């Protein structure tokens, strides 16, 4: 039920974000994750508050699933003073350490080296906390991926590398830029477990992530999970998707995780439609309130230019 709740929150949040942007009330680059909801929902359902994550520009779902407050997230997307980062980071750099959401990066691949450090800290602290690095399929071709997986393996770091393979890096197909047919294959180059799973299938994903998280908590080192999925709204919201072969998106719709999981729960008698609707409605209300909160929040003071550059405030 926790998983469903997360998925529902994510689904509705994305829906609302696109709508608010479309109606011109927010002006930001928005990288919709629609279609990828299952991955962070499942992964984060198995994480503690003290576990940490790092993610990417297309990471709002990861943040929400990890527990980042919806209202502060919206205020940050709106560039307001009540945002997680006082409006200074924006949608690509949301951070919320209280919920373990340590860093969001806009540089492809860079969530991974930093995740190694977060995990190293867990290890040095002698806890069994773990760290998850979220990233995309095309990030599997950049140097930071290679170095991080090797380092994590050599140091046996408690980190789980979760690759959301949505088949595209911007407008370029996975096959055109990656020499092997699966990112998970590359785990062998680091002597670590590599799992290729249907990232839209909650149960499959659950089992694999549990294994990887257990392994990390047990001090046995990192794992790589490739969760295959699809993004329904292109690279950045507003993109035209002429680069996609006709019918690809339609075909992918059959795997859309939120409706499927909903159906799975109701068909299997795990939950009633009414129960789920109640969850949905509660989230919608939360999101509505968050949007209102965000748009009512003041702009940051210009003096913020000089704050947080260093610990000590600068003199203009």
């Amino acid at each position, binding site marked *: 039920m926790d998983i469903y709740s997360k998925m529902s929150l994510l689904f509705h949040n994305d829906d609302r974000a696109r709508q608010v942007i479309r109606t011109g009330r927010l*002006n*930001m*680059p928005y990288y919709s994750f629609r279609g990828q909801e299952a991955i962070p929902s499942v992964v984060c359902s198995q994480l503690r508050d003290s576990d940490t994550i790092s993610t990417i520009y297309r990471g709002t779902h990861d943040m929400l699933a990890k527990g980042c407050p919806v209202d502060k997230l919206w205020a*940050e997307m709106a*560039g*307001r003073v009540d*945002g997680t*980062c*006082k*409006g*200074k*980071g*924006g*949608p*690509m*750099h949301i951070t919320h350490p209280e919920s373990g959401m340590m860093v969001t*990066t*806009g*540089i*492809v*691949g860079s969530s991974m080296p930093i995740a190694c450090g977060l995990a190293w800290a867990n290890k040095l602290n002698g806890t069994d906390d773990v760290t998850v690095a979220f990233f995309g399929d*095309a*990030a599997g*071709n*950049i*140097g*930071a991926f290679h170095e991080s997986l090797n380092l994590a393996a050599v140091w046996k770091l408690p980190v789980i590398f979760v690759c959301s393979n949505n088949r595209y*890096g*911007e*407008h*370029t*197909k996975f096959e*055109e*830029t*990656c020499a092997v047919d699966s990112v998970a294959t590359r785990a062998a180059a680091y002597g670590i477990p590599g799992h290729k799973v249907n990232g839209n299938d909650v149960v499959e994903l659950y089992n694999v992530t549990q294994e990887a998280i257990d392994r990390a908590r047990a001090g046995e080192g990192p794992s790589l999970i490739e969760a295959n999925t699809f993004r329904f709204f292109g690279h950045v919201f507003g993109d035209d998707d*002429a*680069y996609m072969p006709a019918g690809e998106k339609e075909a992918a719709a059959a795997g859309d995780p939120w409706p499927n999981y909903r159906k799975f729960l109701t068909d299997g008698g795990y939950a009633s439609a009414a129960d789920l609707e109640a969850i949905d409605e509660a989230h919608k209300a939360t999101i509505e309130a968050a949007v209102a909160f965000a748009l009512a929040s003041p*702009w*940051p003071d*210009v003096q*913020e*230019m*000089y704050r947080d*550059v260093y610990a000590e405030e*600068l003199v203009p």
Partner: protein
Amino acid sequence: MSDKINMVQAINWAMDDAMAEDKKVLVLGEDVADHTGGGVVGITKGLSDKYGRERVVATPISETAFTGAAIGAAMMGFKPIVEIMLMNFMTVCSDMIVNHAAKLRFMSGGQTSVPMVIRTMTGPGMGSGGQHSDFMEVWYAHTAGLKVVIPSTPDDAYGLMRSAIDDPDPVIFVENMPVLWNPGDAPVRGSRIPIGKAKVIREGKDVSIIGYGRVIQNANAYAAKLAEQGIDAEVIDLRSVQPWDVETVLASVEKTGAAIVVHEAVKKFGPGAEIASTIHEHLHGRLRAPVVRIGAKYAAVPFSNVLETASVPSMDEIEAAVRSLVGVPA
């Protein structure tokens, strides 16, 4: 020349014309081929359809490898134009640019050379935040062996891109994102603008405003307003930061006796420091006041629109500087 086009189109024309003339010209970078959209903002549109996917290649997200590939091909006589989508991403492959492209001619004693162009976009004003907006041209201007070009109009962009492609050395070609879609005079196809030659975009006698990129065009528009108030500013668009046109700048400041240097890069340790120092070195005792430097605030580029706007040089800052230099009260 009365037709209007924007910089996206002008740069596209320059690459197109160069590829048509010389089959050694190559284009590579993320998404640059037509089946991948012809570049994120369409600057390379049509090129792979016209010149083939051998010469126009969509790369993996592997800036080190594909910049290296461009260097290697350039050493073998090709003329690659490599797109590193945004300037901040150049940090992942600075080794290739700084330790290799810039230095191979010198370290090989002139036996090899790297005639390549690195195209990159950047600029605050799009709400892209701290990792997608930086102007880092001073890094590359400080690195001997590189040239750095930052055009501000479509026709300049065309002529400078043609010169950059012709150039026997590596040229970093910076595209100012917020003005990419501004219309401007269409270039004469085939024309060149020499790298290192500034353009006096407005003549004046009271003060010299020197800069490049979007902000100098803004300053120029502003100068017309100042003129109504009796302040006659000369406005110089440097167009390239390295080499930069010392001669034109000194001639102007010698005439006006006062200078403002303005750019969107951070002021501290920024390009303006070199320009201001050079002016002082040559015109000591002939300046009414020290050269005023205006640049971005010393911080990462903030996301929030109010802060993003506050981070870059404003017309108010320029106006205040002009007034203080010409001695006119506000």
